[in-house]
C-alpha cells in the first residue's frame, strides 16, 4: 500500500499533557482510509529544518463530505517533534501517507488484549475503535493494559475508557493505577488468557516490547507489535529503519519498519543480534 503526497492544514495542535500533543489535520478527500497501525511521514511544507520528515502513527481518521481529518498523537522527544509542537492553526504540512502495514485484524480471536507504553496508546486506540465498529467486538471481550511513567504522562485514557470496559492503568511510580511496569502488571494476569482464544496487540518503547517478549516467552500467544525506528524515507528505499527479524527458516534478516512493518509478530523479532 503506497502513500501519496498531500498538503495538510493544521486545525488544532494542543498540548494534552506535558510534552504530549494532539494535532488535528485536514487533508483532501482523496486520502486513502488508513488501517490502524499505519503512519504518515510529516514535515513542515517548504522547510528543510529539520531535514527529515517525521513518522507519526495515525490516532484517528474521519471522512467528512468534502475533506478528511486526521489526528496525530505525538510526544516531544527531539528537534523534529519540538518544531511540530510549535505549529499553529493554519500551518501547512507535507504529508506522505498512509504508510506501512497496519495491524492484521483478519483473524482476531474472541478475546483481545492490548498493551501499551506511553504514547503507544495512540495506534491501539484506533485499532480498538476499528474492532468495535467494524468487526463488532463487544467491549467485554477486550482488555487493555495502558502503562505510563507517571500520572503526569497519562494520555488517551478518556477515549480508551469509552471503547474498552476493562482498562488496567498502571504507572511506573504508582501515582495512578497499579504501581509497576505494564509488562509486570500484565504478567500477573497472564494465566487468565489462553493462547488459542486470545489475540494480543502491543505498542510502546523498545524496552517495553522487549520485556513483553520475555513475559510471553515461550508461550504460543499471537502478539502483534508496532515498532518505531529512526526513519528517513518511509517508503522502503533508504533501508535505514531496519530491525532484526527471523524469517521462516529462523535466520536473521533486517526488515524495514516502514514498509515491512511497522507491525510485526512479536515472536519474529530478534532482540540480541550481534
Amino acid at each position, binding site marked *: 500500500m503506497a*502513500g501519496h*503526497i498531500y498538503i495538510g492544514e493544521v486545525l488544532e495542535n494542543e498540548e494534552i499533557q506535558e510534552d504530549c500533543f494532539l494535532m488535528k489535520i485536514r487533508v483532501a478527500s482523496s486520502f486513502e482510509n488508513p488501517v490502524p497501525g499505519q503512519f504518515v511521514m510529516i514535515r513542515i511544507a517548504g522547510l*528543510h*529544518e529539520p*531535514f527529515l520528515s517525521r513518522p507519526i502513527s495515525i490516532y484517528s481518521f474521519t471522512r467528512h463530505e468534502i475533506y478528511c481529518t486526521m489526528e496525530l498523537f505525538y510526544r516531544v522527544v527531539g*528537534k523534529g517533534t519540538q518544531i511540530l509542537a510549535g505549529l499553529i492553526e493554519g500551518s501547512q504540512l507535507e504529508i506522505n501517507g498512509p504508510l506501512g502495514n497496519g495491524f492484521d485484524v483478519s483473524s482476531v480471536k474472541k478475546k483481545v488484549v492490548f498493551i501499551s507504553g506511553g504514547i503507544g496508546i495512540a495506534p491501539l486506540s484506533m485499532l480498538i475503535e476499528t474492532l468495535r465498529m467494524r468487526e463488532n467486538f463487544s467491549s467485554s471481550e477486550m482488555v487493555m493494559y495502558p502503562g505510563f511513567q507517571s500520572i503526569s504522562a497519562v494520555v488517551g485514557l478518556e477515549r480508551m475508557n469509552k471503547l474498552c470496559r476493562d482498562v488496567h492503568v498502571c504507572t511506573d511510580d504508582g501515582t495512578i493505577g497499579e504501581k509497576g511496569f505494564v509488562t509486570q502488571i500484565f504478567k500477573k494476569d497472564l494465566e487468565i488468557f489462553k493462547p488459542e482464544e486470545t489475540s494480543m496487540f502491543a505498542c510502546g518503547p523498545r524496552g517495553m516490547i522487549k520485556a513483553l517478549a520475555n513475559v510471553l516467552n515461550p508461550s504460543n500467544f499471537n502478539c502483534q507489535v508496532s515498532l518505531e525506528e*529512526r526513519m528517513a524515507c518511509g517508503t*522502503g*528505499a533508504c533501508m535505514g529503519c531496519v530491525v532484526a527479524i527471523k524469517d521462516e527458516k529462523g535466520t536473521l534478516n533486517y526488515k524495514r519498519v516502514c514498509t515491512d512493518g511497522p507491525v510485526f509478530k512479536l515472536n519474529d523479532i530478534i532482540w540480541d543480534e550481534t
Partner: protein
Amino acid sequence: MKTKSSPDIAVKIGRLKLKNPVMTASGTFGYGEEYAGYIDLDNLGAIVVKGLSLKPRLGNPPPRIMETTGGMLNAVGLQNIGVDAFIDEKLPFLRQYSTAVVANIYGETYDEYKKVAQRLSAAKGVHALEVNISCPNVKNGGLSFGCDPEIAARVTRVVKNETSLPVIVKLTPNVTDITAIALAVEKAGADAISLINTLTGMSVDLKTRKPHLKNITGGLSGPAIKPVALRMVWQVVQRVSVPVIGIGGIMTPEDALEFLVVGAKAVQIGTANFINPLVTMEIVEGIKDYLIDGKIKDVNKIIGTFQP
C-alpha cells in the same frame, strides 16, 4: 497566453541516451518500484538501482541512520537482494518503462565485480553499469577500491572486460585528490564518471556518549555536502574527457543547474528523494523553466558554460 515550445532536455552520457539529465542516485531509490506510486518513472532520465552484489547482503546492524544539520548519516552497508534476485524479481518491473536502467554494482573482490557485471550484461533491460568503488560503510571492498588509483583502474578494467554496456565509475570524495582517481579510471576505459558518493562522518549521543550509528561512522549526504560535491565535479571535468555525472546534495532545480553549468552532463538525485518523493519531477520541470526563461532551446547549451 502564449504557448512556449518545450526545450530539448535529452542528454547523452557517451552511448547512453537519457530523456533528461535527472537520474536517481543508487541507494536512494530502491529498485524503482518504491517510487512508482509517486511519480511516473518514464519521466526520469535514468533509474540507478540500489547497489547489487553477487550474493544477497544482510547489511549493517541498526541503528543505521542519523539526521544531521542539512543532511543525514547512513551506514546501511549495502543491504541488497543480490544480482540474481534483482534480475529475476526486480528487472521485469523496470522493463515496463522506457527509462534507462543503470545497475550499480559492488564486489568485495575483483572476481565478484566480474561476475556481477557478467550477469547483468546478459540480462535484458540493463542499459549501463555503475561501478561502486566508493561505499564507506562496508568493511571489505567498496571504499578501499576507490582510494587507490591503481586498484580503481584495475576494477574498471575487470568490469570493462566483461561487458559491452557503458561503464560508469562512481568515485568517493574521501580521498586527497579525486582527480587522480578520475584520471586512472578514465585511462582504464571508464565510459563515464559519477561523483560524489557520501562523505564519511559521525555523530555522538551525549546522553550515552555512544555513537548514534552502530557502525560508528557513516556516509554524510544531503544539502550539507553540495558545495563539496560541486567543487569536486568542477575539478574532475577539467581533467577528464569522458562525461561526468554530478551527485551530492541536490535538492532543487537550481542545485542541479549548478552542476550542469560547471560541466556535468547529468545529475543524480539522492537523499532529496527521501524527504520529497516528487523531487525528481520538480527538478526536471525546474530545469525546463530555466531554459524557457533564458530562451535556451537545448539543455546541452548550458553544460560546461561556467565562467570562472
